[in-house]
């Protein structure tokens, strides 16, 4: 089974190719069924590989399948190879599993769309790229997937490209990602220059054995972090993620909640030994950026009115938590949170999609309310997701967030405090969202006539293709915490599973005050979650306090407009200066060469008189000279 690991990306790729060729013939819904089947089959293969890895002892859980030699150029030998080890299989499991559920959901959501087959073509291509990313054996295969998911993100965000805002959002996402990709490329160059190979085995081994200088390791780590910031939407490159909500909701659920945005976290965990070999301040940078992003995005989410935008900023915030974990050396906690976040965030997005679908594409929360009465399944599953993200035990989000905060406290108290604040706000704004959407007064009839609605626009529950995945994911959101329970060493299953990958670099917090008092911190986490929920209920449900939603927060601290102002003003002037330099000096030099040559040839042209006799004379002179040479050759 382990040798069949190439099947895992091959199945979605086949799905993609089949839909490219026969998509229009298959149509709605068979194109979607095909795509879903391919992804589900891929999941089955991954599960098989998982069980086979489990049967091996811990040190041997690493299998490389080389498909072919991709770039054999002198010193650079890169193979197209896939690596099946605990980390990649964990990622592949939830990518294909949640991916299959979202494919099923999308069959219902995209029903009736004119470009139905195209959507699933892109979805399968995305799954293929993501699998190449996580299962790559070297940085270049990962980069192939990295670029692939970026491209698919662009395709899918601007899927309804006739809408200007969607097309612009797609471009914004791609360009911002590109800035991050630069970082990853530079990191690859540095790694190759220092170690001579791009494979994870080689680089990590060099980092662990100490042959990678701390300076180089820091450079590589920081550049990888730039790439991660772009892909995983951290400060300052997060601005594309809220705009990416222009894409259809299954896209938001799959790409911008569960999978693509976690690539950065995955990459840093994969290169954990390099981070460990770098200067300590680099980890601090990562942790600080993560914590600040978490807080920053949480503040913005408090003031959003679009149901998907709240979740988008929430994603940015939760990703900030994951980077906080990585910066604190808690790779297992980061992966743990990544998996639980995938469960509940995908659930929340799909739930919001169900709401939007039921509300006939109304996305403004101010026009919703009391939807639990007409959409019961959606409501219950959404509530489960809410409890998970808010950090209420025993739901999965509580355990993962608590683990992160524990390691953060052991590393840096100040960052812990910021994380706590962000967690508080998370509970607050998520409760606000649940209340506004599912409880309270039904506001969908207010001003309905003015907003162009007509006929009976009472919201309705969604079809089974959309609610079934919600139920499955809610089950996972409830039970997911089992992976890593803090009760004893034996229940740290995820930690044992990931040990071969991160054991060298995982921070050891045994003996710190935090570790000894972890139950205290756990209780504190419960209190924070409850406090956030209670405050939100007090403001939005009971109306005891006035809702504070400043416009500054709604505008996302005017981040976008300040960038536009800078680029439009001084930025533009700089660009114009460079363009003028190119046109006049660089082009001028080139043209100048041409002019000089022309002048010289104008002079030489006069030799060609066209008169046959002068040609004969010149030939004669040449002949005389040659004869003279022959004669004198013997003499001289």
């Amino acid at each position, binding site marked *: 089974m382990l040798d069949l690991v190439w099947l895992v990306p091959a199945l979605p790729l086949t799905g993609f190719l089949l839909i490219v060729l026969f998509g229009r013939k298959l149509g709605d819904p068979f194109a979607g069924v095909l795509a879903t089947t391919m992804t589900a089959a891929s999941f089955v293969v991954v599960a098989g590989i998982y069980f086979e890895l489990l049967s091996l002892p811990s040190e041997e859980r690493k299998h490389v399948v080389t498909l072919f030699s991709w770039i054999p150029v002198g010193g650079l030998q890169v193979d197209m190879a896939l690596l099946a080890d605990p980390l990649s299989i964990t990622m592949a499991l939830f990518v294909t599993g949640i991916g299959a559920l979202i494919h099923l959901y999308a069959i219902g959501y995209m029903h009736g769309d004119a470009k139905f087959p195209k959507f699933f073509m892109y979805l399968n291509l995305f799954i293929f790229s993501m699998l190449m990313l996580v299962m790559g054996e070297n940085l270049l295969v990962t980069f192939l997937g990295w670029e692939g998911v970026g491209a698919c993100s662009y395709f899918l965000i601007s899927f309804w490209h006739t809408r200007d805002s969607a097309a612009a959002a797609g471009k914004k996402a791609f360009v911002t990602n590109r800035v991050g990709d630069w970082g990853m490329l530079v990191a690859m160059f540095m790694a190759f220059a220092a170690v001579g190979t791009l494979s994870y085995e080689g680089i990590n081994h060099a980092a662990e054995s100490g042959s990678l200088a701390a300076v180089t390791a820091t450079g590589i780590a920081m550049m990888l972090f730039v790439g991660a910031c772009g892909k995983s939407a951290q400060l300052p490159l997060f601005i594309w993620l809220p705009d990416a909500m222009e894409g259809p909701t299954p896209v938001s659920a799959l790409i911008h909640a569960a999978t693509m945005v976690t690539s950065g976290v995955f990459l840093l965990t994969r290169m954990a030994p390099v981070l460990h070999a770098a200067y300590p301040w680099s980890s601090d940078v990562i942790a600080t950026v993560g914590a600040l992003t978490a807080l920053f995005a949480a503040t913005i989410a408090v003031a959003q009115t679009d149901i998907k935008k709240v979740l988008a900023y929430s994603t940015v915030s939760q990703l900030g938590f994951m980077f906080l974990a990585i910066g604190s050396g808690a790779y297992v906690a980061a992966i743990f949170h990544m998996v639980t976040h995938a469960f509940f965030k995908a659930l929340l997005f799909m739930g919001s999609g169900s709401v939007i679908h039921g509300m006939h594409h109304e996305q403004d929360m101010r026009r919703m309310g009391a939807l639990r009465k007409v959409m019961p399944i959606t409501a219950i599953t959404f509530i489960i997701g809410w409890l998970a993200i808010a950090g209420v035990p025993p739901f999965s989000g509580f355990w993962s967030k608590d683990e992160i905060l524990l390691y953060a406290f052991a590393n840096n108290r100040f960052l812990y405090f910021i994380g706590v604040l962000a967690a508080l706000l998370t509970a607050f704004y998520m409760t606000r969202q649940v209340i506004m959407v599912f409880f309270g007064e039904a506001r969908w009839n207010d001003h309905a006539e003015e907003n162009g609605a007509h006929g009976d626009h009472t919201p309705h529950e969604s079809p089974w293709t959309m609610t079934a995945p919600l139920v499955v994911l809610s089950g996972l959101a409830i039970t997911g915490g089992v992976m890593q329970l803090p009760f004893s060493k034996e229940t740290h299953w995820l930690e044992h599973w990931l040990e071969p990958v991160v054991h060298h670099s995982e921070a050891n917090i045994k003996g710190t005050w935090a570790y000894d008092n972890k139950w205290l911190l756990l209780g504190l986490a419960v209190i924070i979650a409850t406090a956030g929920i209670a405050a939100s209920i007090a403001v939005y449900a009971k109306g005891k306090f006035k809702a504070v939603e400043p416009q500054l927060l709604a505008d996302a601290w005017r981040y976008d407009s300040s960038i536009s102002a800078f680029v439009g003003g001084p930025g533009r002037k700089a660009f114009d200066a460079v363009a003028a330099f190119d046109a006049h000096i660089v082009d001028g030099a080139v043209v100048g060469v041409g002019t000089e040559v022309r002048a010289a040839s104008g002079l030489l042209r006069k030799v060609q008189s066209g*008169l046959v*006799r*002068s040609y004969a*004379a010149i030939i*004669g*002179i040449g*002949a*005389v000279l040659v*004869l*003279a040479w022959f*004669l004198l050759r013997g003499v001289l």
Partner: protein
Amino acid sequence: MELFVFVVAAAMVLGGAIGVITRSNPVHAALSLVLTLFGIAVMFVSHDAQFLAAVQVIVYAGAIVVLFLFVIMLLGVDRTEDVNIEPITVQRPLALIVSVGVIGIIIAAVVTSREVLGRKVGGLDETTMSSPDANIRQLAREIFGNNVFAFELTSVLLLVAVIGTVLMARRVKSSGVGK
């Protein structure tokens, strides 16, 4: 005796050559050429190359010069060319330099190697010069022995030249045909 023949033949050759380059009337120049060709033929005979002398007279003087005269008459270029003026001012000095240079270099080469080359003129080989047709025999043996392929090729060459020239020089009925 050979000296006398040499002097006369040389006079013919050089006289005819000077005539070719100085006569402004092309017909006169053609006749001077004939004088040169005859002189060369005489010199061939004095080298015991009788066959070549005959071919020289028949082909060169008899056919080629006649061709020249035909074309002169055909095109009516018997109008004289003014040899006194020269539009390209540098041409005459340049031509003088070239010809004097060529002559000088060749003379220098010949004089340097006169031990090797300066043999008495008198036929190729005493033994082979025994019979009157010795030259023909030897020549024929060489041409049709070692050089028969070249011989065949030259016949093809003649054929090609004739066909090409016929095609090239015909008057084409339609208008606007290029040279």
